[in-house]
């Protein structure tokens, strides 16, 4: 290849000292995410205030001038995400921060971001929905939306942190992934993690790896904005460098000009993530190997689940814990592998069933799938998770479809009346 950086030669840069406030802090998840973004080299945030994500935006606003960054509070969420897409094409690393209804408003431009292969990070501090729902309380019901919310076919990466420390760490990782694969990366946090205050250790700058943007290095006249490297990701140019690039949300060819039918190359938008899934996916596993039941969870629920798992283990049950750090792309291989070894999966989530459908899909009928739903407004009672594990361990039959565990809350509300 005459031009473009070879994908195999990874250039790893370290974080800029000025951007990293090395030390340990007692801060909440939202603020930690802002610090993480700055450490990752983010220089632009376009935001719009929405509970419970506002603290992250505010923290960024306060720090930005000291690191050469700039922020703008736009007139709405459509504006805030559109502004960061522009900032990215001007060469900045950029992020937007939102929650629930704001996320719904961003859908059109998430599609644009995916289509233009714009690397950006979106922090969604989930609250309970639908609609305005419970603005100040936790939810995890935007998980499917993050994958499917915009029109047309595209793939994104979604990460679900479960502590302020992870909000810091995974915001950096999110920026790295977005630069590497040139796709939207979403940090699907929740109100609990966002507002939880814990110790956060910010390491020294040279301990933080930064994925640099893959800038095109060849002759200007040969630049094709959408000609991919071997790993299916095209190198990028930025506005103002004299490439006179044209990019369009219309279906386009390598030059970026509109075409009137999709070509096999269009499928690159999904393939660049699907084929690299193994490299992207990160999971935390605990006592999986000889487990009968595996609890699959993410975000704050994975911390609540630990208590339920401990209770079950104390009763002698063999329970493994599989925490999805990366939720999208979904770890289908790992789930399919496990499904052949275990009796059942137990999936607690703060919604009425979203990721559980994916678990069921990948289990291919090999293991039972038990859902422990929670409508939102609070986290699970670990007792419910424990009971679901107990049930899953005892159930001898293969049950078709998802088994919904009736939680205490369900009984309280719906069985009291009838």
């Amino acid at each position, binding site marked *: 290849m005459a031009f473009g950086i070879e994908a195999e030669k990874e250039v790893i840069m370290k974080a800029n000292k000025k951007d990293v406030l090395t030390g340990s802090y007692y801060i909440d998840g939202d603020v930690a995410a802002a610090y993480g973004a700055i450490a990752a080299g983010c220089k632009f945030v376009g935001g719009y205030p929405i509970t419970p994500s506002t603290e992250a935006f505010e923290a960024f606003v306060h720090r930005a001038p000291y690191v050469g960054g700039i922020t703008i509070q736009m007139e709405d969420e459509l504006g805030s995400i559109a502004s960061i897409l522009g900032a990215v094409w001007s060469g900045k690393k950029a992020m937007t921060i939102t929650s*629930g*209804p704001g*996320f*719904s*408003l961003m*859908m*059109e431009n*998430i*599609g*644009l971001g*995916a*289509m233009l292969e714009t690397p950006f990070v979106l922090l969604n501090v989930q609250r*309970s*929905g*639908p*609609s*305005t*729902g*419970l603005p*100040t*309380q936790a939810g995890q*019901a935007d998980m*499917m*939306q993050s994958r*499917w*919310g*915009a*029109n*047309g*076919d*595209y793939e994104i990466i979604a990460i679900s942190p479960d502590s302020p420390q992870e909000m810091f760490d995974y915001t950096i990782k999110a920026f790295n992934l977005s630069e590497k694969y040139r796709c939207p990366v979403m940090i699907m946090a929740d109100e609990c993690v966002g507002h939880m205050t814990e110790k956060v250790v910010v390491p020294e700058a040279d301990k933080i790896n930064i994925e640099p943007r893959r800038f095109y290095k060849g002759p200007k006249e040969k630049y094709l904005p959408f000609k991919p490297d071997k790993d299916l990701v095209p190198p990028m140019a930025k506005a103002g460098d004299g490439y006179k690039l044209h990019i369009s*949300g*219309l*279906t386009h060819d390598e030059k970026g000009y509109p075409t009137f*039918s*999709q*070509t096999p190359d*269009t499928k690159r938008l*999904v393939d660049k993530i699907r084929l690299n899934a193994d490299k992207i996916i990160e999971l935390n596993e605990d006592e999986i190997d000889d487990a009968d039941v595996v609890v699959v969870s993410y975000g704050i629920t994975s911390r609540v689940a630990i208590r339920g798992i401990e209770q079950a283990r104390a009763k002698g049950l063999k329970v493994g814990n599989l925490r999805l750090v990366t939720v999208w792309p979904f770890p*289908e291989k790992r789930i*399919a592998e496990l499904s052949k070894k275990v009796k059942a999966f137990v999936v607690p989530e703060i*919604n*009425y*069933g*979203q990721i559980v459908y994916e678990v*069921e*899909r990948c*289990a*291919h*009928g*090999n293991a039972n799938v038990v859902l422990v739903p929670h*409508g*939102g*407004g609070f986290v699970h009672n670990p007792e419910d998770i424990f009971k679901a594990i107990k049930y899953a361990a005892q159930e001898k039959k293969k049950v*078709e*479809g998802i088994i919904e565990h009736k939680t205490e*809350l*369900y009984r309280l*509300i*719906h069985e009291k009346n009838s």
Partner: protein
Amino acid sequence: MKANSKGVLTGTHNLSGNEAIIEGAFAAGCRFLGVYPISPSLEATDRFLQRSGEVDATFVQMEDEISALAAVLGASWTGKKSMSVTSGSGLSNMMEHIGLGIMLQTPCVIVNVQRTGPSLGIPNGVAQGDTMQARWGSHGDYETIVLTPNSPQECFDLTIKAFNFSERFRVPVLLLTDAYIAQKKTLVKIPPTKDLKLISRKLFKGAKNKYLPYKNDKNLVPPMVNVGDGYRFHVTGLTHDERGYPVMTSECQEACVRPLMEKITKYQDEIIEYEEVETDDADVVVISYGATSTVVSKAISLAKKDGIKVGSFRLITIWPFPEKRVRKLAQKIDAFVIPEINFGQIAFEIERCAAGNCNVFFVPILGGGLPTPEDICKSIIKASKEKKKIEKLIEL
């Protein structure tokens, strides 16, 4: 309830899918369209405008799709059956208000004429890329009803059905067509007014001071009232109690949101509609919907010439997904073949319901055009030759 003869254009007409949808809407009693123009849904708007004078319908072109759906929700509360028509990125813009419509339990119909995506994609290109978005596009948990016609005649019939479901269950119902069905013209038979079966929202009839906007009846659907009827009700997108007042607890969330989903899952057997051809002794079943299904029958007859036992399963209701039936079929057959004009959407759902009982082959078709019967036939043949069970979605 019977239809109002003013809106029903009884007779046989040469109509495009878009036009048939508007005729269906008028026949169903729709009298309000809030819209923002976007290809390839424009003919629908034109038709509505042309006929609005005759049927006394109100039309407003808003400044964007966000406000178009907001206006539709507002109009619906005045007692008018209301709809919006959009496409591609327009649907993405409507996501927030689909959530509001779900939460306020506002009956309305949204027609999405799918075009190739993502983003602007190909404005007049055929595609089926919004199938999952239709189910999952708004934040929070909800269930919705999504219908997909595959001919102008079905556009007419299903639009009436969509209005009936939306009024019965008080939900926004999506009619998912595509650029091909929307612009194809065929003869559409519109029955006489007396033959149309319409459902209208259940109105509250009790004393004014006794009205609770969100007190469910036994079908989990609360009776509605109209703005201006003197009930002086309050509704909010926040999690609310029976009075419609916000309550910020998880108990209230459970009491408020779960019935929003159960009112649909409970009656899914009455909602779900599909069309099966020769699935009884089939080894391979082709699952399709909308534009792709128009090619499938030809492909199947080609495959039969090769001696393959092929059946066809066409989704008319996509959401709620006909899970029970697909599970049953999966136990009897060797493979599903799913041609979709996208890079895999409903195929994932079928993989889930197949639960490892049969192979699932997915045929992605590039947006912008229809597949040829020969292509699908080739996929059917490939699928029938695979005797091993493969535990993943196989892309052809």
